[in-house]
């Protein structure tokens, strides 16, 4: 893998060059001298984990954000777009995940919105409809352009968005996760459109977590991590496994390193029979055939790339979402869990990866946040027992060494790590038998991280089961007793303690090469 762009900068064929792009948000460097080179008429893939800087880089490019440093050269001319509209006029169109068109207007109107062909000061409808038909026909699509956009399925709406971009005379079309809500046939239609764009000399930037797709449509790839460009190479020269390893910042064959996390070596006998199992779960639009089993006293690592369905599966285990297909079995019987409230009654807790949106109640105090899930147990006839409540709060603030000046302090004033501890305490005070932890250490400082690792382990030693979702491969490798790997909504591999290794997990995340062990039968 070369560290240089496939074609040297300055070449005739370069359409876009972004150099040393810096973007700083309060407290975070989102882009740290990132670069990107896109050739004329190529499909250029960008990959990276959540927070790697892909979206920020695109927003700097299309004028949604102002850059704090660096240069952007488009077609040999330095540009600095201030608004997305300017970028569009300058030849850069962005097609977002959620399509930003007007559902109640006709297809033709959507394509020409803002630039309607006019005649005598009025919209020239016949011409507009005719030209809209022509543009769509160019992509091999024939439809009634007078019908409202909302009549079309998502894929066709995307086509309309692409047609709009083309009618602007765009030189570069940015597609951010375009296939995330498409089925296979629709994906094929989209790829066909991309090929046609390419054939007419338009470049495409293609952001996706679905690695298979990249090799199918892409020419070159830029891999980003922590706001930096890690690798620029041609897709033909790099395997999926290498891409994943670079995204995660690992070298293939790198030996398992000890001691980078707060997990110690655990040698515990895990009861062999699982008490909670999910088999062949399907749920639109992500999960396709996901299975997972949980045994008493184990830490199960649930691994997979972003968008592989980890969070979706955890939410189904917790009753927060309902599966379309598949079975959930708790204690040998069909699971009675239909809501988070049911799950809590069965002794299951869930810490969301999005602490702010799904965890804390910001206006409430540490005390009120900590006891929220436990209220039914602290209550007689609907009245909260203040002494029992205080006892629990005091015990867990001490046990988890939560740093707060006063338990009446609003939780929003605490640091991320301490907020997370309060949320863990919210479940621990219920003495659950299973805790579902989605990215439990995201956005937390190193010290608090180690404390939380240690805590998870202590709890498992005491017989609690933990399902741990994390993007940090060390946490999975060092913390888990077993690992289940998801890829594109499917369970593709399971490893037990002896088999757990970074390379095998990364391989499964990327390619699902490990044969699926025959562990699931219901």
């Amino acid at each position, binding site marked *: 893998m070369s560290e240089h762009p496939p074609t040297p900068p300055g070449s005739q064929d370069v359409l876009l060059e972004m150099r040393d792009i810096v973007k700083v948000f309060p407290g975070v460097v989102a882009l740290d001298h990132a670069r990107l080179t896109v050739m004329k008429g190529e499909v250029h893939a960008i990959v990276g984990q959540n927070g790697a800087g892909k979206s920020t880089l695109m927003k700097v490019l299309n004028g949604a954000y102002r850059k704090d440093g660096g240069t952007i050269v488009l077609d040999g001319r330095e540009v600095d777009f201030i608004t997305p509209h300017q970028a569009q006029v300058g030849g850069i169109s962005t097609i977002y995940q959620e399509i930003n068109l007007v559902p109640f207007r006709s297809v033709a109107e959507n394509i020409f919105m803002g630039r309607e062909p006019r005649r005598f000061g009025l919209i020239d409808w016949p011409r507009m409809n005719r030209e809209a038909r022509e543009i769509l026909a160019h992509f091999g699509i024939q439809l009634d352009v007078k019908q409202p956009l909302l009549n079309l399925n998502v894929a066709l709406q995307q086509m309309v968005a692409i047609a709009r971009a083309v009618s602007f005379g765009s030189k570069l079309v940015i597609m951010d996760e375009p296939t995330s809500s498409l089925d296979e046939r629709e994906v094929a239609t989209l790829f066909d459109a991309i090929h046609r764009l390419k054939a007419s000399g338009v470049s495409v930037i293609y952001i996706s977590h679905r690695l298979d797709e990249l090799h199918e449509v892409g020419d070159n790839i830029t891999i980003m991590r922590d706001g930096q460009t890690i690798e620029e190479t041609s897709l033909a020269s790099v395997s999926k496994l290498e891409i994943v390893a670079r995204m995660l910042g690992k070298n293939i064959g790198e030996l398992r390193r000890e001691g980078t996390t707060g997990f110690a070596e655990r040698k515990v006998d895990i009861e062999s029979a699982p008490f909670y199992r999910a088999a062949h779960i399907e749920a639109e639009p992500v999960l396709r055939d996901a299975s997972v089993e949980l045994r008493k006293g184990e830490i199960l690592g649930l691994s997979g790339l972003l968008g592989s369905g980890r969070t979706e599966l955890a939410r189904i285990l917790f009753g*927060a979402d309902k599966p379309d297909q598949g079975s959930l079995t708790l204690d040998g019987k069909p699971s009675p869990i239909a809501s988070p409230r049911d799950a*809590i009654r069965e002794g299951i807790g869930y810490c969301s990866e999005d602490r702010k949106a799904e965890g804390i*109640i910001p*206006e409430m105090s540490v005390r009120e946040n900590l006891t*929220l899930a436990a209220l039914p147990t602290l209550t007689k006839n*609907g009245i*909260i027992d203040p002494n029992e409540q205080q006892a629990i709060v005091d015990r867990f603030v001490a046990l988890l060494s939560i740093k707060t000046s006063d338990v009446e302090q609003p939780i929003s004033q605490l640091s991320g790590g301490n907020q997370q501890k309060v949320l863990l305490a919210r479940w621990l005070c219920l003495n659950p038998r299973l805790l579902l932890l989605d990215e439990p250490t995201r956005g937390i400082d190193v010290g608090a991280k180690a404390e939380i690792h240690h805590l998870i382990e202590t709890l498992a030693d005491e017989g609690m089961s933990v399902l741990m979702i994390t993007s940090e491969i060390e946490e999975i490798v060092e913390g888990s007793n077993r690992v289940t790997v998801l890829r594109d909504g499917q369970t593709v591999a399971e490893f037990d303690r002896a088999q757990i290794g970074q390379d095998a997990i990364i391989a499964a995340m990327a390619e699902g090469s490990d044969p699926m062990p025959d562990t699931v039968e219901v």
Partner: protein
Amino acid sequence: MSSVTSQLSSRSLSLTDLVRKSSQTERALFALIVLSLYNAFFTTNFLTVATLRVNLTQVATIVIVAVGMTFVIGSGGIDLSVGALMAISGALAPKIFTSQWGPLSNEWIGIPLAIVIPVLVAGAFGYFNGYLITKFSIQPIIATLVLFLGGRGIAKALSDGNLVEFNTPHFSYIGRGRPLGVPVQVILMIVIVIVAVWALRSTTFGRYVLAIGGNERAAELAGVPVTRVKRQIYVLCGLLAGLAGLIVVAINTSSDPYQVGDGMELDAIAAVAVGGTPLTGGHATVAGTVIGAFFIHQVRYTLISHGVPDGTTRMVIAAAILVAVLLQRPKAGWR
């Protein structure tokens, strides 16, 4: 010259500081005290038992409705239907106690039922609000607009569109009775306020209300029965509005479907907002609401007793609400 300017600016600075550090409820209380002092000096007969009693009698219905509204707003919702629910309950009560039908003609059966049934009916309409909001995910402002518009029509239908007058002293007791010299509705108000303060602070229900208002998704994932609690909140608000409707018709010894509770939804929302409960939910203060209700009532009383026309009175109340809401913005100050 320069020393005067610096003195002035330092004084105004400390005043800004004071405003910034105080809570909205404290500011409302301060405004209420200033207004009361003004009235004590410049409004004739303000400091008499009779005036106090009249003011308390009039403010009681606002407080009772605004307490229910405090729970609704604390949960991040709003209820525009309270005035119409008052009219429904006020129209229903005379229907029952003036009925000549069998057991209802007996005062000992008719009057208790004329109190209980209208309140329960108003509560049922509150459940309807909550049902629309939770079942179909309709925004509270739209869902309660249905009864805001339609509820008065129901009240009109119940009273055949006419003002209904009655002379039933035992019923009118809830608006006109004065055990130990204290108006009955003032006693009701005090009891309701005490129970509401306690419920918000010390019951699971109160905690759930604020958790839903603070972060509904997080509350749901923490096992809060969001749907059930929301419906309970709107039922509570409906029950209190129903009670307030009865008090109004009891005072008037008549029920006018157009007049009972007219504009009450805005008075109640204003009392809640002025009192320091943010309209975004997650935090609520019943004591603040009581202060807010007294403040709004006294602004109106002051203006009316000084002969200011009704139109101007409304504008002044609107201005008072605007100021209160501006002060509520996070990190109060001008942008």
